[in-house]
């Protein structure tokens, strides 16, 4: 057995969990390998030291805070809902709009902005009106075209009868 293989088995060996034949092989290796023997000794020392690791007492102030946890949770509930990741784009958009509104409210050029907005609004409105009128004329011409088609079809039908 190589030292690497012994290392793999060492913890189980220390715990007495190896099969008798494996155990005998490990023991044989340990007799001739001081390095592995030193590792086994260190493993036993480490196990013993970890098992006797002292527990520490939590500070009294921490216990007080822990007793207050349910009350704190109720208080924090509203804030937790607001801080949900899903709401972050909405909050960001709201903040952006609020910033724009603040700039508008306190801008010295507020009257000019109002005028420009009003001009743009009227421009847009008149464009929509024109578009609507155009749409109406197109509908009318399409209606006329449809009438012409119907008249043509009626004219075509008697001809086809006479052909027969």
């Amino acid at each position, binding site marked *: 057995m190589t030292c690497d293989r012994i290392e793999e088995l060492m913890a189980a060996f220390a715990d007495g969990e190896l099969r008798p034949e494996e155990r005998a092989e490990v023991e044989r290796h340990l007799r001739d390998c001081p390095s592995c023997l030193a590792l086994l000794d260190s493993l036993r020392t*480490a196990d013993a030291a970890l098992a006797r690791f002292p527990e*520490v007492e939590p500070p009294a102030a*921490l216990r007080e805070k822990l007793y207050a946890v349910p009350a704190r949770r109720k208080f924090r509930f509203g804030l937790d809902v607001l801080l949900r990741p899903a709401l972050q784009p909405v909050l960001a958009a709201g903040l952006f709009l609020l910033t724009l509104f603040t700039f508008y409210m306190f801008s010295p050029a507020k009257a000019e902005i109002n005028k420009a907005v009003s001009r743009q609004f009227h421009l847009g409105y008149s464009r929509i009106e024109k578009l609507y009128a155009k749409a109406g004329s197109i509908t009318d011409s399409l209606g006329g075209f449809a009438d012409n088609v119907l008249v043509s079809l009626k004219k075509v039908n008697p001809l086809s009868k006479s052909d027969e």
Partner: protein
Amino acid sequence: MLVDLYSKKIFNMSYQFAGSFQEAEDLTQDIFVKLHHSLSKYDFGKNFTAWFLTLAKNHLIDEYRRTKWEKKQRDDFDEHVRTEASADDPEHGLAEEENRALLWSGLNDLPNDMRMAVILKEIQGKTYEETAEILGLPVGTVKSRINRGRLQLAKILRDRKESAHDL
């Protein structure tokens, strides 16, 4: 009542895992807040201690991944632990204290999952089955993870012994 029963256990688990007393205080608080949020999800058919320790373990590992404590130093061993140990058992020698100090800092070298397994089994004294239940892993996986952790810690002690011998 939950605080009386579990605060010491959770605080020690946090302290041994994070290595910082201050950090352990914050983590313990976070875990108890999480517990109050999650109590409604507890299935009464399950073992409460294992369920709570799993919740604590998940929080500790999530925080470890988020903040990367391994970049930070652990508290000095004698800062909080050594005094208590000496009071509990005044007979044990300097060498044993030195070994514990080495193991304490050596815990930082273990990967987080391995460190948690070693803490639960070797320090907190849980059985392999209990540790496996808390970690949500098969017993065999937990056993090999713990054994590799023990071996890594043993190598730290062996190397230290050898370098002391060379001097």
